[in-house]
């Protein structure tokens, strides 16, 4: 299909400001009389606050107040409290905030506050708390229980509780040593098919343990906030991935009517899943400002961002996989212990679903536990569950292929999810899948057959390794609202409540509206980033879902506007609405294009007509946020507004496959990535440069997951080692290939009006998996059974000095 806008590059409206530095982020905003707040955080991994003496701090010149947990609704474990009091569960957990006339005074004041703490036992490795008699991270236990209870009035409890699961010494020892812990208790389980019977049919069975280590999001823009209150309204400058979805939740957090919250967030400096929804410290920002009745900037430092900025869960697991004679996966049995940090539900089931979809086993069983530790809270990070599973799974599946006598690519090809693929415990289906075609395309681009035949041993003690990996994430939802306004200046104002995470998809999705209206992009104005600008109820920006979800809502808003344009034209110029067409910022008689109205003229007539044409009347089924926005816009032009009620069945998938070639230096454990080729299967490509950016960025982070980034905690005192960016070691420009070859399948999904699905998460998962596969291949199929694989591990392996531990340890080296 030939499109006017879809599939073509464009300049997003915020691009120039990003390049020049003019783009403003939360800490750039100032307000007359603004004060600064800083956090005092816990030096203990576990305990409680016995008493706080802030008298000396409060007596300092320029200090304005202290804000503690007592200023907030009670919070019960395992909810992540904005400020801790009775349950301190990690080093760096905020205890209180101090406000002062300057940032420096606030920092100085924190040193003057005396707190008496009571210590409690702590734990940094999930298997240590799982052991009978082992320490618990919370006084009441070590694991999440979803009791689905209603939150007690006035609390932030969320229908979850802390329970306790323990294993015997024999069970933990077996698991630590890579064996199935017979008779162990789990927190969650699911299965489909006859697992035992399918294993009996398998010619090749591989059983392996695995570890993936969690690591922080380290969003470049810390979660600072600035709030002030005027005339009963809270004006909040924040940093979220989402806009209108966050708006409602932030209102609830601040205990105000959504109509009284103005949320301003034009640009966001990274979130990676940690800023999809409002986070606890935002409550302190808003409520402390109200308490002082002063504009207040809550400034969060780089180190604090490590503590409260969320992190990926680690996994400790065991996997048994069976291949049949034809290379198809017959059965999978997997156990996953998730490190949920001091809060979070883990993502073990999602990890297992990745296996289920990407290898289509006939039967599968998953058992898991999300265990708390006294480490930073964990949350969604780009492909939570799926990506870390992809990375550690790839070399294990390579081993299965080798042992079964199959080419690694051929084995993936045999098991690839096809359009009729089923996955997960519910064995749900997909909206579409072109993954088999994507595998073929990527393999051809990479020249797999040619490369796999090349010698591995090179000069200077180097070896080649080639690998492949696949990524998946569900990539689309439905039911959100689209909103646009055609104004009397002839311009089309495209409103969106999608956050601006920096991917430009907030603007890209609006091109579906421009496409339907057949109008020039130059006459479109993107309206976003400030709830006073009247934004619709849009999806959260996360989970790869923006493209699919919001091209649908943009499309339905445009369809509503087109209907109104045609009706206005017919009423004014005669004939039936269907006699008219839209294009070139005009609505015109299809049979005589000279007869028509400009958009400016139509907008004026919409205002004159009133009613639904200019927003006095609007659909009942749109969200309250959208209704509020339409109310505010009524009478200002022609309003196109609708809820997405287009058909949707099954999961809209985002798929990607990557191939990697490395040259590994056996002397140093370092490797150069000499080729990186990745193909996205994300339906129609809406914005080629955006896709390229997503695939490259995801690939780079995948390299980080496979080779660099990890939590390191000292088990002696619960202290984290890598609170700074340089210590966390995301890969740098000299650690990744200068050229990364990427492409999109550009085949339409039938459930999107423009054929598009999202691709955010899989871009990382495929890269991490491919690199892990290549590292293993370079070492003749050796399995480290963990991510990341760092140079010391490779050097130890090559030296055969026995110092690569086989234990399933996480949060340490």
């Amino acid at each position: 299909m030939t499109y006017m806008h879809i599939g073509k590059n464009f300049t997003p409206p915020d691009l120039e400001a990003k390049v020049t530095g003019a783009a403003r982020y939360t800490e750039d905003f100032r307000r007359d009389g603004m004060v600064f707040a800083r956090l005092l955080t816990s030096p203990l991994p576990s305990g409680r606050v016995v008493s706080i003496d802030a008298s000396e701090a409060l007596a300092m010149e320029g200090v304005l107040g202290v804000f503690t947990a007592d200023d907030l609704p009670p919070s019960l474990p395992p909810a992540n409290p904005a400020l801790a009091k009775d349950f301190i569960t990690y080093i760096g957990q905020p205890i209180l905030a101090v406000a002062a006339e300057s940032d420096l005074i606030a920092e100085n004041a924190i040193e003057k506050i005396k707190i008496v703490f009571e210590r409690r036992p702590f734990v940094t490795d999930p298997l240590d708390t799982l052991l009978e008699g082992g320490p618990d991270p919370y006084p009441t236990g070590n694991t999440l229980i979803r009791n689905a209870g209603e939150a007690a009035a006035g609390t932030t409890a969320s229908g979850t509780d802390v329970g306790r699961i323990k294993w015997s010494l024999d069970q933990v020892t077996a698991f630590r040593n890579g064996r199935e812990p017979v008779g162990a208790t789990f927190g969650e389980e699911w299965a489909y098919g006859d697992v035992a019977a399918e294993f009996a049919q398998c010619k090749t069975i591989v059983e392996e343990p695995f570890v993936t280590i969690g690591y922080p999001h380290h969003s470049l823009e810390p979660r600072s906030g600035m709030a002030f209150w005027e005339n009963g309204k809270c004006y909040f400058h924040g940093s979220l991935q989402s806009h209108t979805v966050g708006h409602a939740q932030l209102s609830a957090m601040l205990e105000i009517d959504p109509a009284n919250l103005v949320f301003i967030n034009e640009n966001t400096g990274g979130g990676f899943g940690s800023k999809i929804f409002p986070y606890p410290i935002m409550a302190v920002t808003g409520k402390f400002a109200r308490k002082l009745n002063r504009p207040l900037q809550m400034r969060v430092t780089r180190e604090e961002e490590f503590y409260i900025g969320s992190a990926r869960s680690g996994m400790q697991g065991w996997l048994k996989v069976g291949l049949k004679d034809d290379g198809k996966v017959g059965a999978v049995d997997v156990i996953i212990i998730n490190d949920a940090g001091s809060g979070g539900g883990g993502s073990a089931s999602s990890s297992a679903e990745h296996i289920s979809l990407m290898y289509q086993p006939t039967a599968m069983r998953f058992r898991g536990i999300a265990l708390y530790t006294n480490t930073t809270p964990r949350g969604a990070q780009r492909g939570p569950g799926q990506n870390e599973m992809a990375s550690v799974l790839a070399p294990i599946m390579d081993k299965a292929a080798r042992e079964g006598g199959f080419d690694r690519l051929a084995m993936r090809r045999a098991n690839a999810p096809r359009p009729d693929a089923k996955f997960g415990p519910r064995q749900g289906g997909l909206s579409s899948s072109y993954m088999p075609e994507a595998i073929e395309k990527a393999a051809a681009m990479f020249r797999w057959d040619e490369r796999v035949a090349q010698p591995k041993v090179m000069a200077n003690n180097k070896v080649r390794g080639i690998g492949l990996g696949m990524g998946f994430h569900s990539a689309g939802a439905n039911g959100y609202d689209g909103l646009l306004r055609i104004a009397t200046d002839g311009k089309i104002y495209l409103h969106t409540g999608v956050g601006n995470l920096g991917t430009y998809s907030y603007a890209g999705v609006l091109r579906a509206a421009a496409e339907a209206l057949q109008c020039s992009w130059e006459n479109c104005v993107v309206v976003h980033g400030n709830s006073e600008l009247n934004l619709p109820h849009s999806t959260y920006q996360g989970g790869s879902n923006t493209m699919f979800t919001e091209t649908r809502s943009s499309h339905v808003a445009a369809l509503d506007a087109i209907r109104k344009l045609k009706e206005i034209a017919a009423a004014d110029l005669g004939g039936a609405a269907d006699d008219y067409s839209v294009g070139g910022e005009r609505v015109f008689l299809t049979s005589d294009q000279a007869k028509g109205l400009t958009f400016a003229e139509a907008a004026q007539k919409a205002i004159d007509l009133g009613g639904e044409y200019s927003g006095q009347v609007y659909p009942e089924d749109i969200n309250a946020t959208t209704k509020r926005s339409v109310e505010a816009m009524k009478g200002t032009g022609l309003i196109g507004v609708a809820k997405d009620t287009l058909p949707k069945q099954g999961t809209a998938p985002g798929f990607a496959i990557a191939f990697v070639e490395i040259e590994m230096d056996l002397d140093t454990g370092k490797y150069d990535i000499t080729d990186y080729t990745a193909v996205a299967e994300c339906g129609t490509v809406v914005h080629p440069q955006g896709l390229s950016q997503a695939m490259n960025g995801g690939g780079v982070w995948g390299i980080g997951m496979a080779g660099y980034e990890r939590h390191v905690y000292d088990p002696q005192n619960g202290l984290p080692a890598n609170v700074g960016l340089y210590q966390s070691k995301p890969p740098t420009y000299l650690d990744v290939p200068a050229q990364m070859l990427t492409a999109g399948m550009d085949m339409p999904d039938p459930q999107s009006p423009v054929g598009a699905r999202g691709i955010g998460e899989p871009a990382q998962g495929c890269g991490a998996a491919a690199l892990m596969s290549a590292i293993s291949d370079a070492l003749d199929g050796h399995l480290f059974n963990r991510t990341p694989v760092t140079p010391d591990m490779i050097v130890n392996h090559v030296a055969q000095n026995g110092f690569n531990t086989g234990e399933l340890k996480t949060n340490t080296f």
Partner: protein
Amino acid sequence: MPSNDNMPEMSLYQPVQVEDAISLAGTLAERGWLVGGGQDTYGWIKDRAKRPEALIDLNGIESMRGIRETADGIEIGALVTLTELANNALVKERYSLLSSAAGRVASPQIRNIGTLGGNVAQDVRCWYYRRGLNCYRAGGNLCYADTPEGQNREHALFGASRCVAVSPSDTAPALVALEAQMVIRNASGERVVAAEDFFIGPDVDIRHTTVLRTGDVLTAVRIPAKWANAEFYFEKVADRNVWDFALVSISAAMKVTNGTIEESRMVAGAVECTPRRLTSVEQAIQGRARNQETADAVASLASQGAKPLNYNHFKMPLMDNLVKRALTV
């Protein structure tokens, strides 16, 4: 847990003559702190782990800048940035070992502002010490890294004495290999210390990594002509290729005549609190060819005597491998 990141209020002195800096350093003594590029300084002070009352900013002292040819080699001002050092034609031509080492420090941004003086005088990077724990080096009575559970992947193989931190400098091993002389001035005058003696381990003084003491100013580094245009080898292995400290580095200077190594200086970085001269390797290769056979014969001498901790065994084969490469490339 403090998460400070503001510069606390303190006095700032900006002398333009080295004599004034020396006078200030002597007068302020423990209350003062010399700052050049600030790449070590600002972390300490913003974290409030070190609390000087005054900064003595050396950047206005022109005499501490520049790279000069001398009767016996070159003299490098302590304020020469690592970028200048890496790109200087004279250094690249005669002492490429040093320019290569300088070019691998941290990142381009840090090299643009970080100085040679700061790179050699910087404190250790043990993460426990940097987090402000009261370890031996910080005046306490225990080492958090040297325990059964200590996270000590980056720590020392040699020379541990209560503290197991390593020398983080990339240029220090190169300077030791080149037999550099460190020019130090204080109120009493000038003294010149061999680079090999400039760096000191915890057995000598656990609170200092160099011989610099209160009132001292490192003004310049002299490289003798002895090693000019010798055969050099530098390699740094780090997790990341930019913005990272070495896991192990090797700096080698060799005089080779007719294929035979007449004299050499082999120095490893990041394996001990000081740059570690590999004297047994130097002795073993004297009179032998610089080739694979020699490399295979002597490389394992490099790690001989190492006392690995729980997580840094890899440094032993890595040291050996780097020596092997120095002898074969």
